[in-house]
Structure formats: C-alpha cells, structure tokens
C-alpha cells in the first residue's frame, strides 16, 4: 500500500509563503493498493492535484469521505477524472437520517455554489453509504465507524495483507473523557486504530489553543498522542493543521510533539506532523520511508 498526503490542512485552504512546507490544501490522502486500485480519502482541495497526476485512461476510483464539511468535499468539482466519461467514480460516505449521500453532496455540486450539477458530471458516478460491516475494495478490506466530531462523521481503516492505514482526520475523542483512564472500548475510534501500521489523526490544536475550541470536533496534540499511545499505532501522522498555523509554528509544534511522545514512552521517529506530498510505503520502516515528491 502506498499512501500520499495531498492535503493536510483543516477548515479552509491556507495557501501562501508561510505554509509552503506543510501545505495549504485541505484534507485528501491518496492510497494505491497492491492490485493497483486507487482510493482517495476525502476530497478537500488536495484532491485537485491528486487528480492531475492520474492518467487519462479508463479507471475506477473510490473516494471515501469521512463527512461532508466543506473542507472535505470542496475539491470534488475540481477533480479532473470526474470530468472524463471513461471514469467510474464510487463515492462512499456516512449515512444520515436527513437525506441520502447523493442529495447532501448535491447541495454543494449545484447552483448557486457550483457551475455544474451532479447529473451533469460526465463520469459514471455512484454514491454509497458505508456499511456497518467490513467490505472489500480491490485487495483491501475497509472498515468505517462513527467517531466523535460534529455531525455524522466516519473514520476509516484500510487493511491489506499485514499493513493497515487508519484515517481519522476530524476527531475529538477527549471531549468529556480522560483518554488515559478510559477502558479502550469506550474510546471513540479505538477499534479502527488498534495497532495500526499508520495512523493519520487530527492534531489541529496546540494544547494552549484547545480550551477556546472545546467541542469544535478536533483534538489538541496531547489528546492525539494519548489516542496513539492507547491504540498502539506503530506510526502516527498528525493532520488537519489549523489554517492559522504557519510552517514556522508547525516546526516548533512538531518538536514539542516528538519530545512529548518520547516522554510518554513512544518510539523515537514514530510520530510526525503531516506535510503535503509526503509518501509512505506500508508496511513502513521508521527510518528512511519518508519521501517528498
């Protein structure tokens, strides 16, 4: 399994000279499975650049949406393969008692917010509610589960052979809970992340910022570290950076996070802040697997 971060920012794109290293695009992670199947986790603005790298030939692509907040779907109408008739696009997402996944997404892909309607997309697009049970895409087994955030929100686990990727970009598991004391079955998202090879997890706020954002659906870095430690994730990437956090700020935050992780007994080098276009090959080695395209 090959994993590439195409957008690591949360809330809203934050382009500019102060965010060039960690990136300004919102949530999108590309996953290439051993059998060649292609998945995109979320469709934030980062999916635009992912789309530009895909060849113009018949393809079946899966987009797994965690939820429908704008920063996770805004790239859909700029995803080049969606405008090719030879593309089969399968969009997975959370069910809601309010309306179907297609109808909820169509609120964005329709006038006046969009120049095109869902029915006008040239590709063969289908929308599927994620099942409660595990299912298969290509050579991988996929599991989705509801996690603590605002509105219906999923986390995903992708298992392929001995490798696993867990993606929970918007998550506040410590809301009203002490992650260090709770039994593991009472921790939101625990089963998705248990001993995963690579955990991509919300780390939007530095600890001093969190009290002013309590209940907004995101984690302080110390909460993300506690979650990673409790679940036994082998490698963790903090994700969904706050749009106000510059490269310089994130460099400093990353240093503190790494020190805190080691102080918790974590393995050195097993935690980092996600940077756009970083690639991971799973199963990953702690040293030397990092590459920037």
């Amino acid at each position, binding site marked *: 399994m090959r994993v590439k971060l195409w957008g690591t920012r949360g809330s809203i794109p934050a382009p500019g000279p102060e965010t060039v290293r960690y990136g300004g695009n919102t949530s999108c992670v590309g996953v290439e499975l051993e059998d060649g199947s292609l998945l995109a986790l979320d469709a934030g603005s980062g999916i635009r650049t992912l789309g530009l790298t895909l060849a113009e030939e018949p393809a079946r692509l899966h987009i797994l949406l965690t939820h429908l907040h704008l920063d996770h779907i805004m790239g859909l109408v700029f995803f080049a393969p969606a405008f090719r008739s030879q593309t089969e696009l399968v969009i997975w997402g959370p*069910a*809601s*008692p309010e309306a179907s996944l297609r109808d909820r997404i169509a609120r964005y892909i329709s006038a006046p917010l969009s120049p095109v309607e869902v029915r006008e997309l040239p590709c063969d697009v289908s929308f599927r509610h994620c099942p*409660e049970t595990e299912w298969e895409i290509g050579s991988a087994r996929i599991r989705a*589960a*509801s*996690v*603590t955030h605002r509105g*219906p929100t999923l986390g995903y686990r992708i298992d392929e052979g001995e490798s696993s990727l867990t993606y929970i970009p918007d998550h506040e598991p410590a*809301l*009203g*809970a002490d992650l260090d004391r709770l*039994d*593991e*079955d*009472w*921790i*939101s998202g*625990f*089963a998705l992340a248990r001993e995963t090879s690579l955990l991509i997890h919300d780390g939007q706020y530095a600890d001093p910022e969190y009290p002013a954002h309590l209940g907004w659906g995101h984690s302080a870095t110390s909460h993300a570290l506690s979650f990673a430690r409790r679940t036994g994730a082998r490698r963790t990437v903090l994700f969904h950076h706050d749009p106000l956090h510059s490269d310089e700020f994130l460099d400093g935050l990353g240093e503190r996070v790494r020190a805190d992780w080691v102080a918790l007994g974590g393995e050195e080098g097993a935690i980092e802040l996600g940077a756009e276009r970083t690639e991971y090959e799973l199963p990953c080695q702690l040293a030397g697997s990092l590459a920037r395209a």
Partner: protein
Amino acid sequence: MSQKPLELILARNLMSALSTPAFLVDEGGVLVFYNEAAGLLLGKQFEELGTVGAEEWGALFGPFDGSGEPIPYDELPLVTAVRSGRPAHAELTIRSTDGSDHAVEASAFPILTAHGSQGAIAVFWPQAENGTGAAA
C-alpha cells in the same frame, strides 16, 4: 472487548459531566455506566461495581413502589425505554447500599440511531413531596 457505539460513548461522556444522577444501559439492557452522582445515591460508585447484566441490576437497588413493593424489572422506566423505544417515567424508591431509601422520580429515554436502538438513559430527581410512588 468490543468497541462501544459512538452514541453510548457520547452519552457516557455527557453523563460524566452532570451532577444529575444518570444510568446508561446498552441495547441489550446491560447496565454499562452510571455517573458519580448516581453512585452517591446508590452508595457505590460504578468503578467499584462494573457492568451488570440485564435482569440483574434492578434488584441491586430495589427499586420499590409507594407501597414498598418491589417493582418488576420489566416495568422499570429504563427497561421500557430500551425495549419499546419510547420514553418512560416513574416515581420509585431506591435503596442505597447503606440501607437508606431515596424516593426519586426517574425519566428514561431511548438512544435511537440510524442503526436502530443503541440503549437508553435514565435520569433521577428527588421525588416531590406529594409524589404517589406509582410506577409507570
């Protein structure tokens, strides 16, 4: 251990922050949590007791009706809520582990989700002076 449904996790987190006594059962009626305020009422904190199976937890704390008769498990508000998917209310007496009785009003409501019932919550208040003690 299996992962608890998110709705139960959120309910527990909320209950943990409340000073109102509250009970939480899962979809099978198993008592999976009660908060510190409920622990004070019952004379034993949840951490000391742990989860208690359906049909068993009712007998631990009474409960009794206004005549001092035990209320059948099937008629407890929490059981009604989790089984029927409807809210229920009753006045009842809970017996603490120290032998003291507490007349309370209990309101229970089901936790219904897109995937069906995940359990129910009951909250307790001290019974009003003119309470009848009749179980709903």
